[in-house]
């Protein structure tokens, strides 16, 4: 049955554009109020303001999932309340927000024919715990943002930030290689060695920098965190390992130089690696949502 059941209501959709109009407008790079969601809620005990809050939280959740599925930011533009079937005579209240969500080139993450199945299944799995553990909402925004940017390096930085925000959140408890108490004793010994060997022999600010950076050597490196995450999600296969090496290489180059150029023929390296990163992120998001949808569309052919 074509339906999505939420905790508080069943949501119906109505398309405002014809199929042909939608096909044209969706790739026009201009945001458009293309669909309306309608629903009915009985106000037994709650106030209408509480009901709105609950409804908009529910709709935001659906829109996050549909945004991921169709790789386009979906957001609400207006909300209207009617005391009966929607008409001018039953209109009571409306809120409208000024919003210009990003509009990328269309490439669906989930095939439209499976969207219904995806929304129903992932809606059940997408809860606050998942959101907190993996920083899902914030990472999704970076992921979607990457699809709307024009410059390869900018697209890459956004997608890379999406991955890093998931890593930082999900591996937070395993950030340190050895426990902090044990490491503290190691740091004290290392500081003594530095004092004996280098104090007075190098500039004092350089010496202080060395001391300050000792704390960082206990932090798990990016590669290690990424592998731990992929392993925990069960997707650390050869494809992921190979992609990760390219992803780290391009990330380091951009982070350290602000650009990516190694030599002739590297013009496409960033965008090719971006699509590897995009595909890896998509696998991560799907696994977080416990949605097994392989085989997925392959976007690498879009890499030019």
């Amino acid at each position, binding site marked *: 049955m074509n339906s999505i059941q939420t905790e508080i209501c069943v949501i119906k959709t109505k398309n405002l554009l014809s199929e042909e109009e939608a096909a044209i407008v969706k790739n026009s790079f201009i945001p*458009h109020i293309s669909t309306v969601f*309608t629903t009915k809620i009985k*106000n037994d005990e709650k106030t209408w303001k509480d009901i709105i809050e609950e409804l908009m939280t529910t709709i935001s959740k659906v829109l996050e999932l549909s945004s991921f599925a169709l790789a386009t930011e979906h957001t609400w533009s207006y909300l*209207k*309340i009617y*005391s009966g079937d929607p008409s001018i005579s039953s209109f009571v209240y409306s809120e409208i*927000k000024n919003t210009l969500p990003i509009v990328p080139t269309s490439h669906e993450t989930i095939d439209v024919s499976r969207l219904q199945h995806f929304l129903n299944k992932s809606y059940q799995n997408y809860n606050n715990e998942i959101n907190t553990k993996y920083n899902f909402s914030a990472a999704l925004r970076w992921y979607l943002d990457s699809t709307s940017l024009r410059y390869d390096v900018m697209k890459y930085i956004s997608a890379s930030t999406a991955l890093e925000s998931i890593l930082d959140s999900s591996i937070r408890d395993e950030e340190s290689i050895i426990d902090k108490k044990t490491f503290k004793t190691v740091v004290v010994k290392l500081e003594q060695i530095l004092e004996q060997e280098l104090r007075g022999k190098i500039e004092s600010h350089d010496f202080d920098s060395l001391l300050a950076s000792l704390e960082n050597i206990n932090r798990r490196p990016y590669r290690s965190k990424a592998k731990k995450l992929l392993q925990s999600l069960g997707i650390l296969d050869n494809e992921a390992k190979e992609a990760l090496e390219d992803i780290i290489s391009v990330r380091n180059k951009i982070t350290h130089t602000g650009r990516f150029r190694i030599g002739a023929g590297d013009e496409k390296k960033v965008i090719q690696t971006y699509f590897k990163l995009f595909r890896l992120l998509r696998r991560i998001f799907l696994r977080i949502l416990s949605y097994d949808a392989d085989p997925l569309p392959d976007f690498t052919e879009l890499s030019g």
Partner: protein
Amino acid sequence: MPNLLSRYISHDFVGKGEMIFIDGTKYEGNFSVYVFTSGSIIGSIFLTKFSTDINERFQNGQKFSIIGKLNDGLRISAESCVMYSLSHHLGTYVARFSANYTKVFDDDRLKDLDKRGDLHFEVGILNFYSRFELNSN
């Protein structure tokens, strides 16, 4: 509403009211607020009086609200408005602005909204082009 714009406009509101700045200063006028199909909210207010003060507020990008009554009797408030042009037209000063947020409501019906019964909701969604129905009920 100009014909050219009509195809790009999702909602339009016309009425009379006040633009109110944070320091409490008010300017009266007739206004129009348009919600475009792109999701942006743009408006114009035709000021009945002009003071040099308004020009300074325009130059400084001061935020203001619009509170008023629409021609059909509904109430409106537009929040976090910023002028993007101020001009003189046929003896009237016109401030054109963008708004971040707008509420429109029927004052009388709103008081009864917490009475038990069904509430019907319609939510406009940007960029959702999928042709399938989320629910077939």
